[in-house]
């Protein structure tokens, strides 16, 4: 498996075309004074789009992204893009960080320096990590999977990436959103190599089988999940059931794509009603631009389709039975206040060997971007015990 250097270089034609589209945006109206209640707010999206057209500089952001070493490797026919930053420290602990939707490898951009050179952030060199950040299949620069069900194989690709390709025999892993699903599978299937995992949520797959001995806190948590499904989960249902129907439009309209992604950064982060309390326009637009220029909207919906098809429910149901109480890999959790409700520890303990449990008042679903220092500290503290 040959590893090649990779350099991000979006063709000029794609940038020109994008600007033409932005210039011709045909805006819909909205319900007066509805804020974000009906979805992405018109006034804010106009402001962001104006910035995208007039001030945002893709090339400058691209240069910044290219400061990290990017690579590509083909594993079992699947081309994987990844960032690999080695620490200068001896005995650095290898860690693989897995993102979700609608973020990208950029989810972890702020963690890279904090983990590879902790001493620059008031920490200790002995806590250093070698950081590996792959793009999920079908996201950004990783090729689209050519068959359904790829979601259920990503952990195997990751294990091969870390061991066969990068020659790490022991490593740790962290993830959130889809990254949490994949990190969990990685620990269960490759425990010989995985010294520990750290997650910011318990994968929602577990809620598909509701046990009949829920504690009060767990019952409350399930109520929160069910409420969320009624109010905020339609995106997952459409992406899972009719991905092409939506992707056709999001591939043709950049403001359509921006609105679709932006709503999640607004509603799932701890932004207190203003998305820029947590993200800069450049951060938001670089992530959106990655989806746009790589034309990966349909393939980024594939995990949702996988979950609802290919007998996934049966598969998950069986797996959950196998998993219950069997995990031995030490697991740490950092729960950020505005992410996934009040996740009770006992719920996590049904599926994981929970060794660390930290609740943090601030931060949301994109904790690695919102509260990078707090998350880096959690990773450092937890994995120190597993070195």
């Amino acid at each position, binding site marked *: 498996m040959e590893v090649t250097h990779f350099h991000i270089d979006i063709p000029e034609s794609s940038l020109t075309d994008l600007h033409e589209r932005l210039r011709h945006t045909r805006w*819909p109206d909205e319900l007066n004074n509805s804020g974000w209640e009906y979805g992405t707010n018109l006034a804010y999206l106009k402001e962001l789009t104006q910035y995208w057209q007039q001030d945002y500089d893709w090339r400058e952001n691209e240069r910044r992204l290219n400061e990290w070493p990017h690579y590509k490797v083909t594993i079992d026919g699947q081309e994987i893009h990844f960032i690999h930053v080695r620490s200068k420290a001896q005995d650095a602990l290898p860690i693989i960080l897995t993102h979700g939707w609608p973020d990208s490898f950029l989810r972890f951009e702020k963690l890279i320096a904090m983990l590879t050179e902790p001493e620059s952030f008031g920490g200790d060199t002995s806590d250093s990590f070698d950081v590996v950040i792959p793009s999920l299949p079908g996201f950004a620069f990783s090729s689209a999977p050519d068959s359904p069900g790829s979601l259920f194989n990503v952990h195997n690709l990751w294990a091969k990436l870390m061991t066969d390709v990068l020659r790490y025999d022991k490593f740790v892993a962290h993830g959130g959103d889809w990254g949490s699903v994949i990190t969990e599978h990685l620990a269960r299937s490759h425990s010989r190599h995985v010294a520990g995992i750290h997650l910011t949520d318990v994968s929602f797959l577990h809620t598909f089988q509701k046990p009949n001995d829920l504690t009060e806190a767990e019952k409350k948590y399930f109520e929160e999940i069910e409420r969320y499904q009624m109010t905020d989960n339609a995106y997952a249902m459409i992406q899972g059931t009719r*991905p092409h129907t939506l992707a056709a439009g999001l591939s*043709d309209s950049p403001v359509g794509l921006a609105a679709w992604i932006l709503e999640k950064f607004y509603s799932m982060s701890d932004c207190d009603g203003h998305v820029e309390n947590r993200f800069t326009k450049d951060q938001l637009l670089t992530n959106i631009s990655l989806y746009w220029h790589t034309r990966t909207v349909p393939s980024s919906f594939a995990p949702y389709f996988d979950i609802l098809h290919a007998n996934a429910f049966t598969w998950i149901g069986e797996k959950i039975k196998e998993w219950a109480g069997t995990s031995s890999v030490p697991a740490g959790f950092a729960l950020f206040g505005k992410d996934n409700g009040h996740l009770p520890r006992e719920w996590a303990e049904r599926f994981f060997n929970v060794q660390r449990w930290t609740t943090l008042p601030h931060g949301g679903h994109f904790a690695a971007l919102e509260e990078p220092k707090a998350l880096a500290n959690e990773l450092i503290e937890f994995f120190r015990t597993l070195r």
Partner: protein
Amino acid sequence: MPIMKTEIASSVQRFTINIPDVVLNDLHRRLSNTRWMNPLESAGWKHGINPDYLKEFISYWNTTFNWRAQEKKLNQFKHFTADVEDYNLHFIREKGNAAAPIPILLLHGWPDSFYRFNKIIPMLTNPAASNLPNEIAFDVIVPSLPGFGFTRCPRQVTQHQPMRHSASLMFKLMTDVLGYPNFVVAGGDGGSPLAQTMAIDYPEAVKAIYINDPGWHVQGVDLSILGKREKKYAEKGKQEFMQQGAYAMVQTTKPQTLAYALNDSPAALASWILDRFYFWCDGDIEESFTKDELLTNIMIYWSTQTIASSIRAYKMETLSPTLTSNDYVKTPTALGLFPKDIGGVPPREFVERTANVQHWTEFERGGHFTAWEQPQPMAADMLKFFSTIKF
């Protein structure tokens, strides 16, 4: 008793559809520049819109479809607008070819438009010309519902029971504006619960209704009180909703997030709407509709930029629902049911819980877009039912 007709109120204006060239030119520029998605694995309809069909469809739209020809056909009907409250309501009004035609209001749904009734209008105004029994004929009124097509929403809209408000606008249109003290109403999809609301709120004026489905509000019924057949139907509906209902979940929760793409990209709009026509019709999509028909309907959304307000209606109505499964329609009600409509044909006893069912017809063929797909059998059935209604 002959139906009284007063002079048409002064706010009524003749209306001709005439989409500006600038809109059409802009549309063609967008169609020519469509940036296609990279589809997931195999083509087909398994993942939603069929990418190959979408390409063929967009290409036809851009190079073959002749809007001006369609516009000319649409303008063969008499179109009007009338000011009712803050709304400038658009409607077609075609007079019946009979001594005392029955006034009928035809109510469309989503994602169709007044065009749903394009084929059935002449069958109802002049049944004999379509080889239908001509004991009665209708004065046909087909509005664009508030927020759809040529009836734009004003800047401020009521958020309290918006469907009840639409019912009052329609009532005022029929009575105050058009001078029909009594009339009948027919509708499917969103037009069904709207017809039911009119029957409940204006029982003196609305003599009978003809609907194609019981309305989404009946899904709230307590399952434990249902009989075996009813339970099976309700459960099938729920299952179908999980597989096919995501469009509605988006539209009832975050419609604005979706609206940006649909109003900016004709491919986005076509994809979103075609997906529903494909899944809700009987047989292959082009066995039921021609591309010209599908595009004429899509053009009504595109050229008026009303896709945002049309999908917003789902959320507004959900936040402040007009009807629940406890509401009952006392007005004589006919059900004209089509086998491939959403959820299939309900058991009669299920519909009887919420309406005074006087007439029940299960058609052999047809799907969700009833009057559009099977105009002749449906017109025949409507004539049969409404000839029994006393004015």
